[in-house]
């Protein structure tokens, strides 16, 4: 492996972007394929499929063996609101293998006592997201019901192309949210990406059940995302 290729690969990984190291096994020839790179033909299809599934493996094309080593950033969840549902969501996310962090400027909610072992930011979301920006491998769940806290990170998540954007609230609440986001300059299509009411429809009633419904919806969005097709197709493919 060329050191230059390793540097490129590590830089992509450090920036939380997906990349594939493509190696022709016989010759050792290799290339780093980034998220936005399109390749033609059967190899291109194999690369796009691998980028989507996140699965590494050997493919044989035209009598040649290629190894596709897929590096996908670990998915993470940013929950806005240190609320009861977030308390239930934290251990569920951990079980499913997703990093989770919680942002809530209300220090009465965001206490270590309520969220032992979970990354917690008792700050305004705008401030935290400036330090720790959202990306396409991040899911955002807005859970405070409070537009002062929820709206800004929702806008940021839609603009970034987070693989999942969900917001808690009844249809009526979401109707008002839709109007605010339109007024803030977002388009209908962008706003339609928000999962609201949040969570898969399993008639969830308790905070624990709602957390399960949210987690299931996030998993579905992550596993079905269309990374290699670019942000436009990805948006169209999401619920």
């Amino acid at each position, binding site marked *: 492996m060329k*050191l230059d290729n390793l*540097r490129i690969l590590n830089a992509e990984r450090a920036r939380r972007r997906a990349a594939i190291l493509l190696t022709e096994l016989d010759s050792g020839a290799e290339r780093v394929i980034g998220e936005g790179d399109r390749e033609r033909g059967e190899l291109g299809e194999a690369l796009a499929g691998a980028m989507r599934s996140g699965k590494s493996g050997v493919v044989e094309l035209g009598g040649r063996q290629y190894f596709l*080593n897929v590096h996908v950033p670990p998915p993470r969840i940013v929950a806005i609101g240190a609320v009861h549902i977030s308390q239930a969501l934290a251990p569920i996310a951990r079980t499913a293998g997703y990093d989770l962090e919680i942002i809530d400027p209300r220090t009465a909610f965001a206490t270590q006592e309520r969220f032992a072992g979970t990354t917690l930011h008792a700050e305004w979301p705008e401030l935290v997201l400036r330090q720790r920006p959202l990306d396409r491998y991040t899911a955002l769940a807005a859970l405070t019901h409070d537009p002062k806290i929820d709206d800004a990170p929702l806008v940021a998540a839609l603009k970034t192309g987070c693989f999942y954007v969900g917001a808690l609230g009844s249809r009526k609440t979401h109707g008002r949210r839709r109007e605010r986001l339109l007024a803030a300059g977002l388009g209908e299509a962008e706003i339609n990406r928000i999962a609201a009411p949040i969570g898969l429809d399993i008639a969830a009633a308790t905070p624990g059940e709602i957390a399960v419904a949210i987690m299931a919806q996030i998993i579905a969005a992550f596993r079905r995302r269309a990374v290699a097709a670019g942000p436009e197709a990805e948006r169209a493919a999401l619920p």
Partner: protein
Amino acid sequence: MSANDLPALDELATAQAWAEEGRKVAIATVVETWGSAPRPVGAHLVIDHDGHFEGSVSGGCVEGEVVAEAIEVIASGKPKMLEFGVADETAWRVGLSCGGRIRVHVTPLD
């Protein structure tokens, strides 16, 4: 830790750091597995010319052999494909106790 950093125990970051220090390095990668294998396809073991290593390609069953082969790969400058499994003749010496089979590609970093 910043979200933009690679984790502390990252084999590929280690390989880059070692190479930039001037150490001679090889990278071993699991490219195929059959049956039950302890580490998934894509897993890395990185080795330097003195036999220091980080990461894993199995649960510790074949790392010794991979390190020895990697030192040869560093010396020759030529990549090599290794296969391990209970069906191999080498199974007496180094094999996978779990009964699986793996193919490991070892390449020098240059």
